């Protein structure tokens, strides 16, 4: 058997190299580039729809025409849009996203610290929602149409109809105002005080996670029950004498997990969108808050950078989802014979 085990590892590597999944990786990577470019062009175009000039905005109404012109020249705003786009793109490729119109700081510096905060929020929400959704869906699917199942369905259907900003306020009302368990707003960096950091992040993460939890529970429970009722390999496993939990987890859940990965990936853009408004409500200094501030001060460079970062993260996340799927699901990994 040791021979066979060695052969197994060799088989896996060889199969991976020759397999369709590697071709898929290449294809997806190639597709991600034009999508990212398209996103940046679109952003640039949309932000340049603004009536009135950014320089005018910065200087205020009293500024003379010469002053405005001078500032425009300084900011490079006198050049045609496509030249400015190419300039910006050239910088972006080398990691230079320009300077903030308002604070004169490097945009990359501003983004850096904020990105970490938003990243933590996203991860907390994602992990939290999955950690809760998986056991709930398994329990619901264990005995379909019984009390727990129905209850979980009612919760997830109504949960999907609650806007996250409403949910955020309800959470604040209950857990901050009434019970005082968590702070209503504010943020403490993780490096400063990990415990306090998690306490400040708890409510915002929950506000983002709850709708996701509802969505994942519904999806997973549906997929599990469909398999339990309709798939022959489930009956095969039962006919082996395998216990119900093992059938549910090793057979049904294993198959559902691939679909779940896709759903999680596709949901990521919604998740990122949610951080914008939730960070605003809880005064969390993340990317979303930075963007809303920049929008209000017409800080174009920063808005642009934020939108691009959000878009790139979405594209990359979708790419990673596809790849994970390809690497994990043997049906794709090995192609069919």
């Amino acid at each position, binding site marked *: 058997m040791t*021979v*066979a085990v060695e052969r197994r590892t060799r088989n896996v590597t060889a199969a991976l190299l020759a397999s369709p999944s590697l071709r898929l990786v290449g294809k997806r990577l190639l597709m991600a580039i034009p999508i990212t470019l398209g996103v940046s062009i679109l952003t640039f175009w949309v932000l340049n729809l603004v009536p009135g000039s950014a320089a005018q905005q910065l200087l205020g109404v009293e500024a003379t025409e010469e002053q405005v012109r001078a500032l425009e020249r300084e900011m490079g705003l006198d050049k045609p849009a496509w030249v400015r786009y190419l300039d910006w793109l050239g910088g972006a490729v080398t990691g230079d996203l320009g300077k903030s119109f308002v604070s004169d700081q490097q945009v990359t510096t501003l983004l850096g610290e904020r990105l970490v905060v938003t990243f933590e929020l996203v991860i907390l929400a994602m992990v939290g929602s999955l950690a809760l959704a998986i056991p709930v869906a398994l329990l619901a699917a264990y005995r379909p149409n019984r009390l727990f199942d129905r209850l979980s369905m009612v919760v997830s259907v109504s949960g999907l109809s609650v806007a996250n900003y409403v949910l955020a306020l309800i959470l604040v009302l209950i857990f901050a105002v009434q019970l005082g368990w968590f702070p209503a707003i504010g943020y403490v960096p993780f490096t400063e005080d990990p415990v306090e950091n998690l306490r400040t992040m708890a409510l915002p993460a929950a506000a983002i996670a709850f709708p996701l939890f509802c969505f994942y529970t519904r999806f997973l429970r549906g997929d599990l029950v469909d398999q339990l009722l309709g*798939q022959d*390999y489930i009956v095969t*496993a039962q*006919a082996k004498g395998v216990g119900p939990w093992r059938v549910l987890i090793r*057979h049904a859940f294993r198959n559902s997990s691939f679909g779940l990965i896709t759903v999680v990936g596709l949901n990521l853009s919604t998740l990122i969108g949610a951080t914008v408004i939730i960070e605003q409500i809880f005064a969390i200094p993340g990317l979303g808050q930075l963007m809303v501030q920049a929008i209000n001060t017409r800080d174009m460079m920063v808005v642009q950078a934020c939108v691009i970062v959000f878009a790139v993260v979405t594209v990359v996340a979708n790419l990673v989802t596809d790849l994970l799927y390809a690497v994990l699901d043997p*049906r794709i990994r090995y192609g069919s014979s």
Partner: protein
Amino acid sequence: MSGEPTARRTEEVLDLALPTTARGPSPGGPLLEVRDLRVRFTRGGRVVNAVNGLSYTLDAGEILAIIGESGSGKSVSTRSLMGLLPPSAQVSGSAKFEGTELIGMPEKEMRAWRGAKIAMVFQDPARSLNPTMRIGAQIVEAIRTHRKVSKKEAAERAVELLKLVRLPAAERRFYEYPHQLSGGMRQRVVIAIALASEPRLLIADEATTALDVTTQAQIMELLVELQQRLGTAIIMISHDLGLAASYAHKVVVMYAGRAVEYASAEKLFANVRMPYTRALLGAIPLLDRKTHELLPVIPGQPPDPAALPKGCAFRPRCDVATDKCLEAPPLKEHEPGHWWACWHPAGSEDTAAGGRAGGRADEVRVGSARQVEDGA
């Protein structure tokens, strides 16, 4: 490691697989005794009677064929033996396996029997294997469910089983996924899983239906060979009378949840009495028939199990039905070893052979592996 199992190797494996079990019919009583088995489903207020009083016996090492059209209750009846029906099913009657009552057995106890004493092979091997698990892991799971052996031992045993079912390059296949195998190879794997704990009874639920004709014959030969060598009894469920004629010792013909004819294969095919069985036989193309002659088919549709006709369920489609048939004919042993449920059995004065031509040419599967072989 060539991977190709020689006959000698198979013998060794068989010795391993067969420590003590007797290879013939067991001396004390039948292996399985089914008495008045009934299954019904209640569904949104509608009652569906899937099985209405089915009885048969099966000795160790015997092959029993249960023949019937879609919805005749043949699959449901065997699944009820293994407790594999959904909770909405109500099962009554008796099914004694080696003297132990299976019907009403608590789920936990039943689980210890499933796979260990009674195993099942399903119709479509493409669907009955988990697509995301390696073949080896699926066999190992079957072994380790019933025996506390190490993973390594189980893996070795799994490879032996793969060789036993004549899967070429068993060691390599062990690490492959179902979609990498052909249909026939997959069915061999499913059989290997079923044999993992050396069951006394193997239920083959349309095990060859989804396969092409050549593969069908190979799988049937494999099953028969295993039955002869391991002494495993087999219940084969099929809608193909030809298959039953070729391989089975005993045949139960089911219609609308009831057995309508039951006898040894020899007796039954020598002298088919039930008009339904006769009609089934008539729908098989035979070499002595004229070419381009239309196959006689059974007119009408199988009855809706939720609304069975009064009396004999076959009455609306039967050539020889009379008013007498409004009363349900009991299944009786009219001749020694030959049971049928009919007031006007074929061979008696008022019966005409054959059926009427009509719409449902697809209802009965045409041809059988053995006949094709004979023809070649």
